[in-house]
């Protein structure tokens, strides 16, 4: 046997996941959990029904930040190459989300006719308290299946980390931020013209 020793360095890429763990320390009450669950199902229904304007009005906060990143594949022990490893597929505020919604609903959006059909599954919901008693961190998984024209079926899947703020409006909360690091590096579903 060779006597060479192999140094195992601590992987750096796990750091991001470890940072997130601090957000998941203090579970919220059962009452809050159920209110959040109802909120997420309502949001899922509005999005699957393509009621995007209602989604913006009833679910999305005016100061929202909606982020989907894609992370470049690097070696676990990469230490010297320090250029950014994330690309922002979405980094949208309310105005920019509104542009997307109007683009989709425009009568001359040729790709939206015939309509795409969505069916999404929101699971693994966990709700945590934050420093602000009005706000909660919510972790959930989302599987979205899109059916398009006659033969195309696309799957999108992700973990979402949201911040919800209690709200007097019809949904009980507003979405203050949503952060997704998209798991599939090369997106197989043609495009990500969907809200996850």
């Amino acid at each position: 046997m060779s006597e060479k020793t192999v140094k195992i360095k601590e992987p750096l890429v796990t750091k991001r996941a470890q940072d997130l763990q601090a957000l998941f320390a203090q579970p919220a009450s059962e009452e809050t959990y159920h209110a959040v669950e109802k909120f997420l199902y309502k949001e899922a229904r509005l999005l699957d029904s393509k009621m995007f304007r209602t989604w913006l009005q009833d679910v999305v906060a005016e100061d929202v930040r909606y982020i989907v990143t894609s992370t470049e594949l690097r070696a676990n022990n990469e230490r010297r190459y320090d250029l950014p490893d994330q690309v922002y597929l979405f980094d949208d505020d309310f105005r920019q989300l509104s542009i997307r919604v109007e683009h989709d609903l425009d009568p001359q959006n040729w790709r939206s006719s015939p309509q795409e059909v969505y069916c999404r599954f929101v699971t693994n919901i966990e709700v945590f308290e934050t420093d602000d008693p009005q706000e909660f961190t919510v972790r959930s998984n989302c599987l979205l299946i899109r059916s398009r024209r006659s033969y195309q079926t696309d799957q999108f899947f992700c973990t979402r980390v949201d911040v919800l703020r209690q709200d007097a409006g019809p949904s009980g909360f507003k979405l203050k931020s949503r952060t997704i690091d998209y798991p599939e590096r090369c997106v197989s579903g043609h495009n990500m013209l969907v809200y996850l």
Partner: protein
Amino acid sequence: MEDKLINIAQGKQRHEMHASEAIFEQEMDKVFGRCWLFLTHESLIPNFGDYVVTRMGTDEVIVSRQRDGSIKAFLNTCRHRGAQLCPNEAGNARGFVCAYHGWAYGSNGDLQSVPFDEQLYDGLLDKCKNSLHEVAKIDSFYGFIYGCFDQDAPSLSDYLGDVKWYLEPYMDLSGGVELIGPPGRCLIAANWKTPSENFVGDAYHVGWTHSSALRSGGSIFSPLAGNSVLPPEGAGLQITSKHGSGLGVLWDAYAGVHDGELANELMAFGLAKEQRLIKEIGAERARIYRSHLNGTIFPNNSFLTCSGIFKAWQPRSANSTEVFSWVMVEKDMPSDLKEAFTKSVHRTFGVAGYWESDDNDNMESETYMAKGHQAKKKMLNSQMGISGDRIDPVLPGVVGKSAIGETSYRGYYRFYGDLMNSDSWAEVSAKGDNWQDQLIKATV
């Protein structure tokens, strides 16, 4: 069936070229095996040992910065049993070790060590003969690095030819550009030529295909929404070159596809720099700096200059293409504007880009329909402006009649046809001797 795949004299192509696996296999030899292919930008591998893994046709390659600052590229396969050597997209490494048996290569491609080679190979393994397979030629222009598998290819500078004059003001004389990574990546069900031909010279589709994006996004192009107006004669140019690369120019359209809020800031930045450049490079080329260029470097590398979009359409099969989307931005743009610009590029033309998705739909349907047994035999039409192509005393290349025309389609497929019908670069070059006449004489 018309016998030719490409009919240069009439500006037509057989639809089958978008779906045939047999044609695709030939393209991997005759197009991707011969042409200069985009690899990366110097800004993404600045230091010794920096590397990216990218694609040349259907091959994966490692592109690696050497100790002396030069750049080499190698097939990403171990010389032993052909396993993938580097599974990462980018990094910094002194070398690459195969995960299968541990064969280790330096960043210069040399096979440096083989586990237990003395005991197991009885001295019969010559490491010098087992370096990584190296890409024959590497060169760059303005920091953009290209590779070529064919030793007989013309220099990168000659290959780019007439399009360089148009690219220089934005990519070099502006103070230079950089690419911002990592790229967005997605897979579309389209032949690689469908987006390449669209970017090379299709200003015609903008008002109609992007009707909803124009209306909702509020860019400087918004008045075109729904084909409600045609850009006036003299709104721009369209040109093509000997080796198929081509581009369109829309005068003074510096803010490109970006939405109304960002457009004002961008227009102010571009105008200020144009004023400075007028003194340095003259009014004509300073105007080209601030004008919007859409183009494709033949075969599969496209860009929109001022919009900041930089693409590689990487072929996977006749009907599958992986899209790589980087941001191209002027180095001296203020950092907050650069950041807003970068995010806007992905918002418009990235994986979740609301402009990009309009286009991909067309490209996928062109590809899908090309599988039809009857449809594939039919000829496609790229005849717009066909009798107006000309030589200009000032503007290099073959110049079309208007910004909206199909001159660059015709130039792109003229060269594609020469490649597909030739057995060597010598033959390709001979066929292209009178390339300008071939295009100018074309008629319906």
